[in-house]
């Protein structure tokens, strides 16, 4: 085939796939380290899904409550993740996020302020102190715009120095990577196509940072955009890296359920942080019935105490509406199943009766705006109808906590942000993802740069691999007998939404795996009508195989994990099992078959254990681990 001659080639030191928060932060770091850096974005520059993050970025700056510290943040993160987190990632995250936030101000970010002019911080589910740096309820937009503008400023420096904006950092907008190319076990480049023209492009680079975000597009009800097709997860698998914790998906408790066209879109948790309460169709504030034992100490047990908390958080316990997301999602699910839901299948989230209209508009401007414009609902006058929506995948590429380098048998591959796994354990706290992006984006970018520096020779892209990639990419256009990619996507979404959704059962998971097997054969024969120029059908056809393999990982891991923890709820195994806490499930690819292994969790360092009291640890640890903890405590005395 002569196709290889029509491929545009580029040489870079570091290629960052994904232009959301993690990708941009990684690219900035790689460029600051002097590396020639490419940013690949599936969408236009600055449109990444990060813009959807509303609540804020969690960082223990202690601006609002000076008792906050990285230790408390670490503790909240581990607690939220039900102790399944990679402790080192949680530790680095808690320690470094304040610097990462402050750094954004030097890039031009404008966060909301406290009275003394510092960055204001707000309360959020699962965080002990007000901790989320925010800009109204459009923090994600501020973050992405700030990083985007920082990149522009670096390009301006480069133009000044080298005469071209693109001299050392270039954004390839509307470009999709379909394959990573390896030289032995070393990353040698990435292959993809320009969405606009359909022309192929090859990036030769010794280091690749994956920052492609999540997988939510495999679900029927999701807050995620079309880009979230698990590309990075699948690229990593195919390159020989491993995925962990793929059974853990976060269903955001409060997505819009009405009107149907915006089903899935998030209602930020700050609605609850600012006083919003959940009510069922009988008008009952039901969350008090769903406080799990492990949280009883921190949450109010009467409406009176809960209501006092908003004004006086030091002397009252938190309202149960601010329980971690999985608990709230499960509670809503139970209410709806018990027949106390709204007609559209959700519950009511009421802020209208709790705050004056003016105050709601001031505190939640884009929420107000969004409901008014998209649904013609005035949240200052009527309650919202909300229900669980697929929001975030905790699982992802298994990485070295310090460098973000992927495990498995591949070198030169790094991952940061939602596509990486471990940081959030079995459940992510709100606000931790924006700070995660910054902390680990910077780390991955920096380590990718030093990896590229340390190479004696540049890996070479093997020509046959490029030819195969071209054939695979063109195949859906050349077939006209297969099914439509849209139909296949709907079927995949139905399988995942109905059978591998928020509440899981063994029988359904087995069924799901069988159906995914059938879908795999259908997806292999998918055909796309039309040509190569900006053809969304073709693009979807190519994304489908990524969605499929990642869905298989989720279904397999979900079937195997016989307990309920965080973002994984098994109706047939409804409790947490301390033995399972010690286990990560690791997915790898053998041929095109997903293989599942068990791997022990890294052991948390004793001084970190000491941050928790024994009574709390007893809820998570095995007797054996507790005995070790007691022995340590005795030693210290």
């Amino acid at each position: 085939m002569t196709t290889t001659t029509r491929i545009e080639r580029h040489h870079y030191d570091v290629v960052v796939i994904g232009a959301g928060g993690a990708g941009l932060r990684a690219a900035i770091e790689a460029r600051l380290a002097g590396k020639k850096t490419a940013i690949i974005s599936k969408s236009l520059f600055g449109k990444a899904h990060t813009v959807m993050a509303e609540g804020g970025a969690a960082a223990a700056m202690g601006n609002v409550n000076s008792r906050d510290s990285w230790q408390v943040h670490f503790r909240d993160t581990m607690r939220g993740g039900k102790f399944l987190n990679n402790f080192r990632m949680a530790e680095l995250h808690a320690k470094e996020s304040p610097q990462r936030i402050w750094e954004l101000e030097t890039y031009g970010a404008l966060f909301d302020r406290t009275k003394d002019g510092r960055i204001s911080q707000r309360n959020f589910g699962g965080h002990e102190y007000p901790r989320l740096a925010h800009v109204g309820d459009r923090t994600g937009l501020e973050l992405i715009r700030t990083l985007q503008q920082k990149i522009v400023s670096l390009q301006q420096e480069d133009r000044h120095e080298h005469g071209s904006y693109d001299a050392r950092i270039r954004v390839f907008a509307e470009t999709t990577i379909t394959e990573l190319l390896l030289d032995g076990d070393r990353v040698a480049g990435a292959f993809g196509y320009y969405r606009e023209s359909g022309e192929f492009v090859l990036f030769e680079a010794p280091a690749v940072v994956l920052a492609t975000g999540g997988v939510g597009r495999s679900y029927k009800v999701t807050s995620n955009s079309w880009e979230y097709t698990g590309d990075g997860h699948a690229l990593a698998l195919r390159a020989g890296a491993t995925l962990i914790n793929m059974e853990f998906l976060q269903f955001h408790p409060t997505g819009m359920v009405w009107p149907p066209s915006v089903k899935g879109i998030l209602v930020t948790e700050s609605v609850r942080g600012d006083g919003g309460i959940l009510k069922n169709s009988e008008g009952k504030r039901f969350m008090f019935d769903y406080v799990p034992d492990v949280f009883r100490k921190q949450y109010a047990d009467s409406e009176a105490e809960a209501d006092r908390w908003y004004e006086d958080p030091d002397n009252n316990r938190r309202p149960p509406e601010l329980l971690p997301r999985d608990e709230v999602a499960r509670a809503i699910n139970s209410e709806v199943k018990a027949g106390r839901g709204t007609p559209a299948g959700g519950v009511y989230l009421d802020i209208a009766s709790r705050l004056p209209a003016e105050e709601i508009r001031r505190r939640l401007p884009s929420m107000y705006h969004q409901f008014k414009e998209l649904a013609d609902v005035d949240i200052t006058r009527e309650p919202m109808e909300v229900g669980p929506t697929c929001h975030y995948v905790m699982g992802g590429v298994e990485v070295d906590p310090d460098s973000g380098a992927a495990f498995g048998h591949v070198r030169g591959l790094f991952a940061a942000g939602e596509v990486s796994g471990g940081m959030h354990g079995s459940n992510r706290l709100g606000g931790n993802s924006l700070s995660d992006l910054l902390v680990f984006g910077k780390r991955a970018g920096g380590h990718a740069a030093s990896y590229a520096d340390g190479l004696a020779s540049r890996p070479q892209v093997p020509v046959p691999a490029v030819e195969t990639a071209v054939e695979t990419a063109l195949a859906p256009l050349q077939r006209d007998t297969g099914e439509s990619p849209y139909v296949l996507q709907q079927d995949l979404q139905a399988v995942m939404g109905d059978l591998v959704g928020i509440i899981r059962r063994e029988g359904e998971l087995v069924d799901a795996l069988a159906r995914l097997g059938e879908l795999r054969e259908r997806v292999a024969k998918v055909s796309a009508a039309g040509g190569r120029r900006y053809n969304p059908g073709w693009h979807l056809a190519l994304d489908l195989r990524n969605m499929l393999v990642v869905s298989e990982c989720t279904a397999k891991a979900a079937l195997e994990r016989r307990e309920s923890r965080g973002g994984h709820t098994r109706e047939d195994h409804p409790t947490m099992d301390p033995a399972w806490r010690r286990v990560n499930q690791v997915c790898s690819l053998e041929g095109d078959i997903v293989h599942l292994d068990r791997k022990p969790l890294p052991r948390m360092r004793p001084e970190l254990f000491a941050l928790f009291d024994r009574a709390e640890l007893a809820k998570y640890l095995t007797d054996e681990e507790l005995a070790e903890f007691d022995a340590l405590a005795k030693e210290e005395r």
Partner: protein
Amino acid sequence: MGTEKSQAAGAPATKRQFRIWRGDETGGDLKEYLVEVKEGEVVLDIIHRLQSTEAPDLACRWNCKAGKCGSCSVEINGKPKLACMTRMSTFTEDETISVTPLRTFPIVRDLVTDVSFNYEKARETPAFAPPPGVTPGDYRMQQVDVERSQEFRKCIECFLCQTVCHVIRDHEENKPAFSGPRYFIRAAELDMHPLDARDDRKEYAQAEQGLGYCNITKCCTEVCPEHIKITDNGIIPMKERVVDRKYDPLVWLGNKIFRRGQVPQTSVTSEHSPGAVRTPAAGPPGFHSHAGASHDPKAEAQAQAGVNWHREVPKPTAPTLDESGRLPLTELTFDRPAAPSPFGEDVSFPLPPEHLNYAHPEQDKH
């Protein structure tokens, strides 16, 4: 609320008539589609339905489908809008809905245009300059001070303001010299940033971004899905050259109270910074010409008087409207290569200078 609406959701779907532009840079036309529309849907839902049924390769950008990313900008019945924010309930049952690509930018395919113009202009706009000597973590700003810039930072870069702006909408030739409303508010945002170290944002906008081309028709403000007051809060304050280079709340308040226009326009006399704004090449110290290099005392006096927003200019004739009271759709369905000017059929661009309330971008150059 839920009960009533959710029952409505069960109402049977109806078929609605759509006309969607299909084609590429070599040409194309409006194609008719009869599509199912359900209660509570937006135009983007209909485009998605078309993609999954009869038009699988219909090209259209979108991302968040929640009005937050600004990807799905198109022209609906001739008006630039976000497809995800245009509810079907805003049309009458029998109305044909036309969806066409943004007119100001080159076509890529179907509803997708090449918006790289905007990214080029973004790169030309000087970035935030951090205050020297302030370490990260030590930035102190008051909420009231950041709010002014925050308004502009709400911008989702949908480029609707760029596409509607008449300076470039039908005037390709103005593009090199004109950055457009999106980048005027970027400059305004930085100008109002409490800690930005550069103090020549206004002058830069005037000299390099083509701020002077704007004659405040407020079309950009009208289409902004974020309801940013682009003209009132961004462009006009940039055009007014406030006495103090640093943003002074008192001056701002004064302008608010006394209404702009009536406040004596003051020219900038402080020192020029090197870089973006070109330094006057010659002339006595402190002399600052506003009438270009004409040295015509009359022109200079008039230029020094600044911009008078209350100047009487001849009223343009209104454009012809169709039976529904709207402008005829676009050039695609119109008998001319362009839609009628919303500024009047008898007005040609560039406007004669005496009809303009504007300061020419060239006037500060030499």
